């Protein structure tokens, strides 16, 4: 009875977008209450829908419920639908996206309070942003998903560039915001091209873009498996762009130029999670080939490692968090990749145990996605609270804030413990499951040894994560008050601290859901030629996870590493008994430079995209305009009278245009001859 109203979930924020855009100026706080109400209402409906979906037995058998209306139909072609497709993944996604967004919007009321007339734009855009995410979560087909995917991309462009006219920190920051926005848009578009091409491959193979018709065992086996691999890889290309994975990982740290609340929105609840969601959504396709899943895993593992290294010596509080997001997203893809790899092998060999083990990877990836949403939202909002109080993002100017901002300090500590994987915080559970799946995957298949390497990278990443998170916490909250800390007038208002408190409860406790049937709720149909296997489907391992996790020696290894990393951070940045400068040669060592330069990724992009792309364009333009049309520039300035004009036109450039036309005709003839020769039509 609630599921039928799923369409309200994305629609309500959409209505708020329109309402805030039209009458936001006349409502208090520039439409903040409207936006909050919309998000909260979506959240309530999501809860009702999810409750009904999970409790009603009628939905358990197919594992999904879908309804669609015709969007448009090309007579003689295919029909495109608009509808919803609710399964456990969609429920999970819309639940945490709407819940966290509501909290972020409440927080924004305090954070954006001083922004005056710009608030209307802000609340309109975040509402649209939320529409994009929720629409994506409940879409019933790939094209509808793509529409929302792009709406989100557009909104991120607008929001990251929010300060571009007048940044509180001056013109340089405004320019940064502008170029960051553009970069985010263009880089994610590069991924979107892949995604669009992937959708075409899916359309080509299946003749439909509807989830119901694509994720169908018979359909999947009927199509050309090579096309399936191609389509999966192209779709994953879109994911790489959207979730900022290696090698397109450079835009996300730059996207910090937007307001901190937007960073929280992008990093925790929306945008980058869309990529993870899409991989999980396309599991039935991806898991048909172990190579695809191996690729997903490798990209995830490599990103996790590289992003973590870049966070080690960064001085900007938001950038450290941004790199940690990339790194954690890498974990999610690693888990999904390893799990899918096992499932793919299981399908090939018909081994049920492998499929079950792979399902654990899927569960681990999704759990980490949800956990990360909570603790990353918490961390970003805490950093926002700090920035709000001290007016800078540079951690060197902070310090000693614990006494002035107790709530922020404690909640941020909780967030840090959670992301570091400190035992019994929520991040701990999902990270251990991820590592366990990767370890498991390394035992199987010809390429299994690669997962051993990825496991090592992941463990080292866990160490680095604990280190840089506590480096950040100590630099910000403990020690001597820094230059900017003196301006701090105390704790942020209640509208900002209340969301922090709520989120920290989740950052502590959400991980425990794995012991109480999280894996049973999450189900996905993965089907092979001989087997149909629904992962999850009501079977909860429950407390078996405890013996799994604590029965393994590796768990203690990672716990030891995490504790060690926290200890080192304590010595270096709290007690200051170890000089951090000793390790980097006073900022001169190669590694230190490599990290501050982000492994030269930005330069690489500049060389490739801006220089090369623009160079090619200029080159083609030169030929088009200068060589062929030699005098066009001079002509338009020099020509005054008509007679002279025609004289010039006849002697100069029109003749070359004419030559181009004649050459074109000759080329066309040659082309036709060549085609006749190669295709061998009947002459």
């Amino acid at each position: 009875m609630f599921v039928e109203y799923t369409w309200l979930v994305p629609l309500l924020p959409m209505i708020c977008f329109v309402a805030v855009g039209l009458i936001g100026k006349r409502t208090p706080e520039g439409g903040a209450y409207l936006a909050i109400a919309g998000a909260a209402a979506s959240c309530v409906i999501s809860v009702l829908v999810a409750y009904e979906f999970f409790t009603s037995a009628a939905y358990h058998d197919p594992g999904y419920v879908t309804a669609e209306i015709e969007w448009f139909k090309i007579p003689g072609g295919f029909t495109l639908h608009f509808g919803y497709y609710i399964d456990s993944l969609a429920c999970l996604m819309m639940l945490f996206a709407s819940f966290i967004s509501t909290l972020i919007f409440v927080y924004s009321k305090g954070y954006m309070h001083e922004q005056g007339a710009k608030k209307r734009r802000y609340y309109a855009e975040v509402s649209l942003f939320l529409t994009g995410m929720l629409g994506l979560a409940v879409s019933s087909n790939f094209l509808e998903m793509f529409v929302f995917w792009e709406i989100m991309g557009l909104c991120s462009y607008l929001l990251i560039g929010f300060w571009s006219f007048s940044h509180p920190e001056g013109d340089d920051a405004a320019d940064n915001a502008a170029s960051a926005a553009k970069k985010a848009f263009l880089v994610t578009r590069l991924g979107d091209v892949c995604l669009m091409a992937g959708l075409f491959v899916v359309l080509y193979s299946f003749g439909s873009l509807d989830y119901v018709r694509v994720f169908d065992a018979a359909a999947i086996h009927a199509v050309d498996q090579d096309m399936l691999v191609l389509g999966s890889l192209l779709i994953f290309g879109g994911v790489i762009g959207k979730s900022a994975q290696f090698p397109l990982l450079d835009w996300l740290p730059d996207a910090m130029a937007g307001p901190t609340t937007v960073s929280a929105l992008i990093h925790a609840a929306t945008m980058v999670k869309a990529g993870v969601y899409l991989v999980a959504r396309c599991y039935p396709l991806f898991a048909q080939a172990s190579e695809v899943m191996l690729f997903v895993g490798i990209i995830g593992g490599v990103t996790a490692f590289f992003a973590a290294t870049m966070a080690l010596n960064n001085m900007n509080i938001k950038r450290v968090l941004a790199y940690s997001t990339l790194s954690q997203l890498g974990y999610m893809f690693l888990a999904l990749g390893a799990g899918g790899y096992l499932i793919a092998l299981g399908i090939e060999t018909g081994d049920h145990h492998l499929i079950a083990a792979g399902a654990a990877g899927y569960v681990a990836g999704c759990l980490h996605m949800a956990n990360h949403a909570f603790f990353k939202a918490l961390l970003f909002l805490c950093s926002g609270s700090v920035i709000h109080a001290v007016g800078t993002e540079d951690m060197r100017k902070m310090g000693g804030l614990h006494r002035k901002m107790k709530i922020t300090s404690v909640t941020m500590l909780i967030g840090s413990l959670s992301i570091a994987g400190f035992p019994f915080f929520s991040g701990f559970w999902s990270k251990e499951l991820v590592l366990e799946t990767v370890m498991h995957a390394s035992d199987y298949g010809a390429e299994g040894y690669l997962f051993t390497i990825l496991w090592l990278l992941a463990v080292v990443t866990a160490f680095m994560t604990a280190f840089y998170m506590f480096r950040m916490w100590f630099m910000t909250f403990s020690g001597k008050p820094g230059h900017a800390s003196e301006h701090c007038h105390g704790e942020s208002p209640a509208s900002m601290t209340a969301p922090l408190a709520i989120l920290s409860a989740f950052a502590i406790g959400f991980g425990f859901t794995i012991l109480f049937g999280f894996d049973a709720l999450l189900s996905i149909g993965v089907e092979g030629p001989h087997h149909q296997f629904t992962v999850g489907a009501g079977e909860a391992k429950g407390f078996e996870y405890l013996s799994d996790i604590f029965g393994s020696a590796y768990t203690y290894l990672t716990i030891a590493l995490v504790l060690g990393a926290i200890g080192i951070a304590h010595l270096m940045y709290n007690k200051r008994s170890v000089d951090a400068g000793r390790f980097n040669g006073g900022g001169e060592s190669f590694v230190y430079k490599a990290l501050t330069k982000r492994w030269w990724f930005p330069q690489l992009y500049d060389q490739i995209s801006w220089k090369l792309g623009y160079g090619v364009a200029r080159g083609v333009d030169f030929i088009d305009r200068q060589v062929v049309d030699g005098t066009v520039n001079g002509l338009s300035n020099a020509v005054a009278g008509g007679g002279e004009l025609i004289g010039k036109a006849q002697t100069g450039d029109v003749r070359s245009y004419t030559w181009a036309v004649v050459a074109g005709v000759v080329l066309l003839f040659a082309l036709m001859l060549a085609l006749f020769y190669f295709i061998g039509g009947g002459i």
Partner: protein
Amino acid sequence: MDSSIITDLFREFTPMAPMLVMLLGALVMPAVSLGYKRRGGVAAVSLAAIAASLLINAVLLASGYSGEYGGLFGYDAFSGLMILLFQSVAFLAALVSASSTETTRLHFGAYSSLLLAATAGMMFVATADDLITIFVGVELASITSYILAAMKRKDPRAAEAAVKYVIIGGLSTAMTVYGLSMLYGVAGTTSLDGIAASLSTAGFSWAFGIAVVMMIAGYGFKIAAVPFHMWAPDVYEGAATPVSMFLATGSKKLGIVVFFKIFLLLFVAGSAVASFATEEVQYAFAIVAALTMTIGNVVAIAQTNIKRMLAYSSIAQAGYILIVMAVMSEYALTGGLFHMFTHVFMKGGAFLIVGALICVGVGEKISDYRGLGRRAPFLAFAMLVFLFALAGIPPLSGFTSKVILFSAAIFDGDGVMTQWIWLAFVAVLNSAISLYYYARVAKAMYIEKGESEAKLKVPAPFLAAIAVCLALTVILGVYPQLLLDFCADAASALFG
């Protein structure tokens, strides 16, 4: 709807009724301009003529009328739809011409007359059933547009552009005539149906091959297909912006309509014969399409003048539409027709904004658009929508039409996969490239600071025309079915 009012009035001339009204308007226009001192009155009369013609066509189209006159002209769902397209373009152009500072003041009567005559020429082509009428229609539209391109005040670039246009246009006409005469030589008739019938029995011949190449070259000039595109940026840049809009959205479609008429008809007929070289010509079109979209998009990146940028983007858009010629399925034609319509409103809207801004003293350089988001919020927003639609960002019309058009390269209507999936990839890649230069304009408008902060107030007719384009760009994106059924009817009418 009942079309008897119109058929009673025009009797056997009904298939030509919309054109006759338009021509009548063109003929009275010089007299009208003697009576009115101001341009507004003249513009009102020309708008009335277009509106009357539009009304007649709408009634005919909605009533599903079809008929023909003397084997030369035939009105069916296809020609009706294309006439509607040309009328829409003419309406937008006529609406803004009188308030533009670029268009001529002294010769505005002649200007309006030529505009109507050019539109009538295009409409004749849409109904033409015979090589001769196609040729005459194209020439009527071409020669008038040469003059229109030259009619700009105080700008030598217009004269220069017009001269180039005339010379290259003359060359292409020569080629066209040569191609048409070869075709006549092969088939022994100028009637399209007759040629199709003759070809399906005679099969392929080299004379026919030469005719095809010559016609691709000649009408490729109209479309501005690579490598016959060189004139387009110069002419669009040089001409008054309403005329640029007319050429980019209307005149370009003229060439495409000719392609549809001649080639599709011949190949549908020819595909019945095994010895007929359909596939080679399809490949030739596919390569021309791929080149056109790629070169158009890549060169557009380097442009600093917004009219030149839009010109190159038009070239690229024509490349997308040429996919239809490669795929040659009814489904592709549906998508192509739909894209032609969405292109009118998104590209037309963008040109109109450029024209409106020129009226209030904003230059043509992209750098002149800095800070526009504050100076003219509505125009900047509309521009953003048009550019994003052109780039194919959902849920705007450009996205929907591109999805339909590109998916046509993947499978035809019967669910059979085609071999043109590579062309769809090239097209998708190209839409991504295109975002690069559209985003630059968006950045200039919203992110960079301009030298002036003064608010801009543009003439009301421009605002009205832009608002129409904006509304249709959004509506056709969200609810494409509005037009899609007409496109499908038109496609099946052409395929017979």
